[in-house]
């Protein structure tokens, strides 16, 4: 639990007085915590340095070593102190955590050593306070990376080690992703690179005009049209290779959907598709225009180089992450362009034969002027136009020059930040998940506790299961509190599984077996027939065991009548599901006083007293495998009895 919750437990328990008038069942008695001697000062001796603190301080975190009974293992009776053979400097931080609730990370110590100390004292590293958290994580990451690098270097030296039984598919994928792993992969890598280059060069050369051989007049033709066959063959070869590569990657990919959606595969597809479309489309005049446009897409083959170049990938990623800055730049430029174009248009409106025919036409002038290109194809002729033109070119310098260093520094800052942010986000999820796990540990602790038959009266001390006895005082009291709440509302805490099962049972209207972990319902002293709940129990029984309805009802009624017979102030009668058979057998009581019947009916245990059953005919036979019956009904007696009913 979180900081200092143990301090507030008495208050939370006191506040439970508010439930009392509402409780329809009597509440269970409080756990008999042995009289604590108030608050005392403990001495913790860590390698000779003595630390003294209140016992309460350590009890604040009952799920750590110092807060739980685990510290008793380190107690030295002769000196009356707890002795730990650990680093005293680190212990200071651990103890401060108990005192302040925040765990700080020492700056000058090795992070690994700190982690080890935390592990020893049962503290989760996620408890490190926010002030020190970032540094802690950074140092840890650094460490981890350094270790990983060492490992990789080792591995690379030894040669790549694939699991022996890896399939062709896995090996192929690995070859694709890491070309350095095998010679064949490397060869394939270079060959594809070569063909990408060839394809791109061919696209470029296609359009160069080559002189035809001695033709009168020497007609300039692009090479593509002069040697159509050669270029076509080269194109076909490249496309064949690219298609083969794409199909092989698709086959080898561990997750085909993800591969299909990845950017690289899209680029591959865009690179080879025009060729196939060109093959399929018939060569008629109408569509050949469109076909020519398609050839433009062949230039995207150059992006295939990004598989071969790490830098290109990084650039693409940075652009993506810098999109907002670029967008802002574009936006402000657009604003400026529109303003100046409008101004120039109206300034030049009067002139004859002006180039500034419309505002969009003036856009071109503005862009050319602002970027200081100055082609000179559009020039203002009026004085006003020249004035505004000069303002435009001056401000253009500012507009273009100012953001560029900002964007460049943004690039590097955002790039690094993104790396760190992604890391942090991933770690945050893990961190929250671990804290949630620890929390759910306490949530489940109560259910677990019920399962282990913990809600037994402490007066029947010998019969308590060992694991139940070793709970701390805090846990005892907290579980008692939750138990009171259950009693007040006549509902039990369960886990998700049982809940959904119960829901399903309600909807289906009948289930024959129930393997659940819902457990006990201790009944308070003296009121063995509580008002609301037998009805509920019957309802439950009816719902859940349609087929054995009569049996269950019968057993309930039997139990009820038996309860009616015995008006003894028997304290806890306990029923627990899943009580192991040997537990009940081991109970060492007088057999005449102790009656235990373990009935395996697929029904929940009764809220009503779990009484002994004389030969209950239905009890044994309803479908479950093993029925255990222990001893027989003794005479109703006033001695405390413990009865267990479990359904298997």
């Amino acid at each position: 639990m979180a900081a200092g919750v143990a301090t507030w437990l008495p208050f939370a328990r006191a506040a439970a007085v508010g439930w009392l008038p509402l409780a329809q069942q009597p509440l269970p008695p409080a756990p008999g915590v042995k009289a604590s001697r108030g608050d005392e000062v403990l001495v913790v001796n860590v390698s000779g340095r003595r630390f003294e603190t209140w016992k309460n301080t350590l009890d604040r975190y009952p799920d750590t070593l110092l807060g739980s009974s685990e510290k008793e293992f380190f107690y030295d009776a002769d000196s009356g102190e707890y002795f730990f053979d650990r680093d005293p400097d680190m212990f200071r931080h651990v103890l401060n955590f108990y005192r302040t609730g925040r765990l700080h990370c020492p700056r000058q110590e090795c992070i690994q050593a700190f982690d080890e100390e935390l592990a020893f004292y049962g503290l989760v590293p996620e408890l490190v306070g926010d002030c020190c958290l970032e540094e802690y994580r950074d140092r840890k990451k650094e460490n981890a990376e350094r270790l990983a690098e060492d490992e990789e270097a080792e591995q690379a030296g030894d040669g790549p080690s694939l699991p022996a039984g890896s399939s062709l598919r896995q090996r192929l994928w690995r070859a694709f992703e890491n070309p350095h792993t095998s010679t064949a992969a490397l060869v394939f890598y270079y060959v594809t690179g070569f063909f990408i280059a060839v394809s791109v060069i061919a696209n470029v050369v296609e359009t160069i005009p080559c002189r035809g051989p001695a033709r009168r007049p020497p007609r300039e033709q692009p090479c593509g049209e002069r040697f159509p066959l050669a270029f076509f063959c080269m194109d076909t070869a490249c496309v064949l290779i690219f298609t083969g590569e794409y199909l092989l990657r698709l086959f080898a990919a561990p997750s085909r959907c993800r591969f299909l959606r990845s950017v690289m595969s899209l680029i591959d597809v865009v690179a080879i598709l025009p060729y196939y479309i060109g093959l399929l489309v018939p060569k008629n005049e109408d569509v050949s225009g469109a076909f020519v446009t398609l050839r433009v897409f062949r230039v995207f083959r150059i992006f295939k180089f990004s598989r071969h170049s790490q830098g290109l990938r990084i650039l693409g990623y940075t652009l993506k992450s810098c999109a907002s800055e670029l967008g802002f730049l574009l936006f402000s430029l657009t604003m400026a362009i529109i303003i100046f174009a409008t101004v120039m248009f109206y300034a030049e409106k009067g002139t004859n034969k002006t180039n500034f025919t419309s505002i969009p036409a003036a856009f071109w002038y503005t862009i050319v002027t602002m970027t200081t290109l100055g082609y000179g194809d559009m020039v203002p002729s009026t004085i006003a136009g020249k004035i505004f033109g000069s303002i435009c070119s001056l401000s253009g310098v500012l507009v273009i020059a100012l953001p560029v260093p900002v964007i460049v520094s943004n690039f590097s800052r955002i790039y690094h930040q993104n790396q760190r942010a992604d890391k942090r986000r991933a770690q945050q999820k893990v961190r929250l998940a671990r804290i949630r796990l620890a929390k759910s540990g306490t949530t489940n602790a109560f259910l677990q506790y019920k399962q282990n038959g913990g809600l037994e009266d402490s007066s029947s001390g010998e019969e308590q299961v060992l694991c139940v006895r070793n709970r701390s005082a805090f846990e005892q009291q907290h579980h008692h509190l939750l138990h009171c709440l259950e009693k007040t509302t006549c509902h039990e805490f369960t886990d998700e599984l049982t809940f959904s099962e119960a829901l399903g049972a309600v909807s289906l209207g009948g289930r024959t077996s129930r393997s659940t972990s819902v457990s006990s319902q201790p009944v308070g002293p003296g009121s063995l027939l509580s008002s609301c709940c037998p009805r509920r129990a019957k309802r439950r029984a009816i719902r859940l065991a349609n087929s054995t309805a009569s049996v269950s009802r019968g057993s309930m009624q039997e139990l009820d009548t038996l309860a009616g017979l015995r008006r003894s102030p028997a304290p806890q009668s306990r029923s627990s599901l899943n009580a192991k058979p040997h537990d009940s057998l081991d109970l060492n009581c007088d057999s005449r006083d102790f009656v235990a019947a373990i009935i395996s009916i697929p029904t929940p245990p009764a809220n009503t007293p779990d009484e002994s059953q004389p030969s209950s005919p239905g009890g044994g036979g309803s479908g479950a495998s093993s029925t255990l019956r222990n001893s027989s009904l003794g005479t109703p007696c006033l001695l405390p009895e413990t009865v267990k009913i479990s359904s298997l």
Partner: protein
Amino acid sequence: MGAVMGTFSSLQTKQRRPSKDKIEDELEMTMVCHRPEGLEQLEAQTNFTKRELQVLYRGFKNECPSGVVNEETFKQIYAQFFPHGDASMYAHYLFHTFDTTQTGSVKFEDFVTALSILLRGTVHEKLRWTFNLYDINKDGYINKEEMMDIVKAIYDMMGKYTYPVLKEDTPRQHVDVFFQKMDKNKDGIVTLDEFLESCQEDDNIMRSLQLFQNVM
């Protein structure tokens, strides 16, 4: 040009902000810091011994160094005990019962006074405290709506996964049963006397009141 304008505007806001921040910072520095009355006084007013008060105060001060608990912190603390469900509404009602002076914060004296009643008080005092808890608007009467709110808040603490499955009208039924028992003259409201009388008649309640005797 847009960038230029952008820089200008950001410069302006930068200048305006410091003055506002300064005031807030100063306010924060003079944080609410409350010291309780003396140990002897508290010992006289409550049923705790000095040692118990010391233990209580150490814990309280550690959790709330400023000496007061506000409602948010209270709700968070209480919610930690009931991880299954939502304890905020019940904590809200509890807080307002603890906060007898309706100041919005619970001081150590309020805390200790309430604990003294609940743990060491007479039956009469405990029942009266519970009546105050149920009487949300503190008008001296409990009506059905107030009871519904309280019962709903308690059932909320159970959470979603209960056995048997919680139904819509379970709280209402619970309230009806309660009113049947408590409301003697069947006028739809429960007064303090009716409440005390009915509770004293019920053995269960009387016995349960001794439950939290040894909490400290």
